């Protein structure tokens, strides 16, 4: 429904048929392979700069640091492929964390709290989804609004309070790996969810519908796809997964404060776009996003082991993000630049008209 999308994309994006046949080898070579090489390079760089990079503890930390972002990136992938966006993810996370802390402080039993927290996620996602599909509002604006609203609810619930001393049985997930391995709990959940999301996106009719509606919402509607229903469900899924991520974050930090997860929405979007998913919808794979997650986690972690200011890890992430949009367009870009140069040389039409960045 967004006017933002170039309709000509619809023609170039393959019809959603099984993913192996659909995505030609040439396409796979394009971004995912390049990203794979980047991930390897980061690994090599990490090993060469620090002997600690490949140790078990560090791999555990790597999974721990980026686990929640990775988990939230999965529903975000589906939402962006469907042609929308969800900027409220980190606020849902914060709201879930606040509810968890608040109810725990009230003395509720953990299982009951989990149910409430998941319901909060469902409600948050449903509000997003209904405003976007039923009222017909642009998802960018709606989720900027709910970004404020949900974070605001977290502020109201917790105020300046910090809730800690959660039972160690739960906070241990920030200390121990799954079944004594070096795999953090959140990383394990990510792997399981990535498989589920990958299967749904690439091997089921629902997944194909998501590509179709991202490529052209009108065509998808006319093809009998329940665009609004599927999008609403995607937002609800996102809400639930983000509240799960909120629970994981709270236990890992062993703290519920109103600023939990603040600003992570941009990291999540960055990881997804880094994975080669098109912001205009209709293109992208889970494999790419998993590689994007690895690249992101690897960069942050490798920098942690060096003397480089850890907080400035945003620079390489930002540069990678720019590369991720420029490289796939490189051929077009050079052609256009060459055209512009020759046209100027011949001086035939003044000022070659260019697009506004919605190609």
């Amino acid at each position, binding site marked *: 429904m967004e006017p933002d999308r170039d309709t000509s994309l619809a023609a170039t994006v393959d019809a959603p048929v099984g993913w192996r046949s659909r995505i030609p080898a040439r396409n796979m070579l394009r971004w995912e392979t390049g990203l794979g090489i980047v991930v390897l390079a980061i690994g090599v760089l990490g090993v060469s700069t620090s002997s600690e990079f490949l140790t078990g503890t560090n791999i555990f930390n790597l999974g721990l640091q980026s686990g929640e972002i990775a988990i939230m990136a999965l529903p975000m992938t589906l939402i962006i492929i469907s042609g929308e966006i969800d900027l409220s993810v980190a606020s849902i996370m914060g709201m879930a964390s606040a509810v968890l802390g608040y109810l725990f402080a009230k003395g509720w039993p953990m299982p009951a709290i989990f149910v409430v927290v998941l319901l909060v996620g469902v409600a948050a996602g449903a509000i997003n989804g209904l405003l976007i599909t039923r009222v017909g509002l642009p998802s960018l604006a*709606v989720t*900027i609004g709910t970004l404020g609203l949900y974070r*605001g609810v977290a502020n109201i619930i917790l105020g300046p309070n910090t809730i800690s001393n959660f039972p160690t049985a739960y906070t241990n997930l920030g200390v121990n790996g799954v079944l004594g391995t070096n795999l953090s709990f959140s990383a394990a959940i990510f792997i399981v969810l990535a498989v589920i999301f990958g299967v749904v996106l690439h091997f089921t009719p629902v997944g194909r519908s998501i590509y179709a509606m991202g490529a052209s919402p009108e065509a998808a509607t006319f093809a009998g796809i329940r665009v609004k229903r599927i999008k609403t469900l995607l937002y609800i899924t996102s809400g639930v997964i983000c509240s799960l991520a909120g629970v994981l974050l709270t236990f890992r930090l062993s703290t519920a404060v109103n600023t939990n997860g603040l600003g992570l929405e941009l990291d999540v979007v960055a990881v997804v776009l880094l994975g080669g998913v098109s*912001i205009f919808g209709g293109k992208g794979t889970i494999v790419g996003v998993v590689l994007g997650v690895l690249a992101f986690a690897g960069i942050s972690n490798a920098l942690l082991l060096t003397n480089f200011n850890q*907080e400035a890890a945003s*620079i390489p992430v930002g540069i990678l993000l720019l590369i991720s949009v420029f490289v796939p367009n490189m051929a077009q870009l050079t052609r256009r630049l060459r055209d512009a140069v020759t046209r100027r040389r011949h001086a035939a039409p003044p000022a070659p008209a260019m697009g*506004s960045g919605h190609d």
Partner: protein
Amino acid sequence: MSTTLAPPREPPEAPADLSSRRLTERVFRVRETGIIAVLGLFVLITAVIQPRFVSSSNIQFILVDTSVYALVALGETMVIISRNVDLSVQSVLALSAYLSAGLFGHVHGIPIPVVFLVGFGIGVAFGAANGLMVSLGRVPSLVVTLATLYIIQGIDILIVGGNEVVASSLPSGFTAIPNVTVLGIPWLAIAVAAVIGIGAYYLRTFRSGRELYAIGSNPEGAQLAGIPVARRVFTAFTLCGGIAGVGGVLWAAQYQTINTSAGGNNFSLIVIASVVVGGVAIFGGSGSPVGAAIGALLLGTINVALDVLGISSFWDQAIAGFLLLVAITLDRLISLRLAAALRKRSAHDGT
């Protein structure tokens, strides 16, 4: 507000055209008067409960506090009208605040206008980089400015590190900027209002300004109509960056202690929220900087009003988010009504 949307003084064409145009104008005027009405209502209720709210010192405080947001919202409005978005304003503002205010410590006796120029220049450089990538690279602005938000933030962290510019290194003429008043109105608010007025006039009257609306309404159509889309979009981003740079200098004058957290980590989103609450369509083609400024004023007023009413400031963000949702929902409903009414009219006149 009516000045920005005054009826065009053209000879009337077909009566049907005129009446539908009148209807459109009335509805668009409703958009901005709606925000003013909400603002007025809010001020009134708060003032009845707590008369201290409308004291001149409190009003001055609100105006000064809103100025930076309203100013940056002007640049953001230009970008959003052209159907783009600039998420990087907050990092541009933070870096400009540190570098420009730091000049006072490095260059003794540097004139204040030079510092403003430096801030503007820093912003223009980053804005031009954004604009080049969006217009020539034809990549989505959401991604480009998300990336530059990260990169500039990182640069800021590398440059600033653990340092900060402290108030004692700033000349008194600079730190007094937010406090100077003319007839009880902060000079800063008057200056910002004047700049916004000029911006609104430019967008409404000048050809290149109008072309931004055309680009936002229909990029392909604008290109086919011979509008230099790339150049206009580039200019919008460059100006937006420059304005954010000036915003950084003002931020420094206002808060006087500048480290990596200048601007806060929500600044861009607050600015975009102000713009959208102020009636600028997020997908371009309509709205005005005056509306955006009123949007910023509304959000700023709410912050202060809650404080005055003794409601915890922890409610601010929820209310701002809720208002934004209400604003875009109402806007959508109004435009649906409008479209239906226009269709009815043209069908009626056609037969």
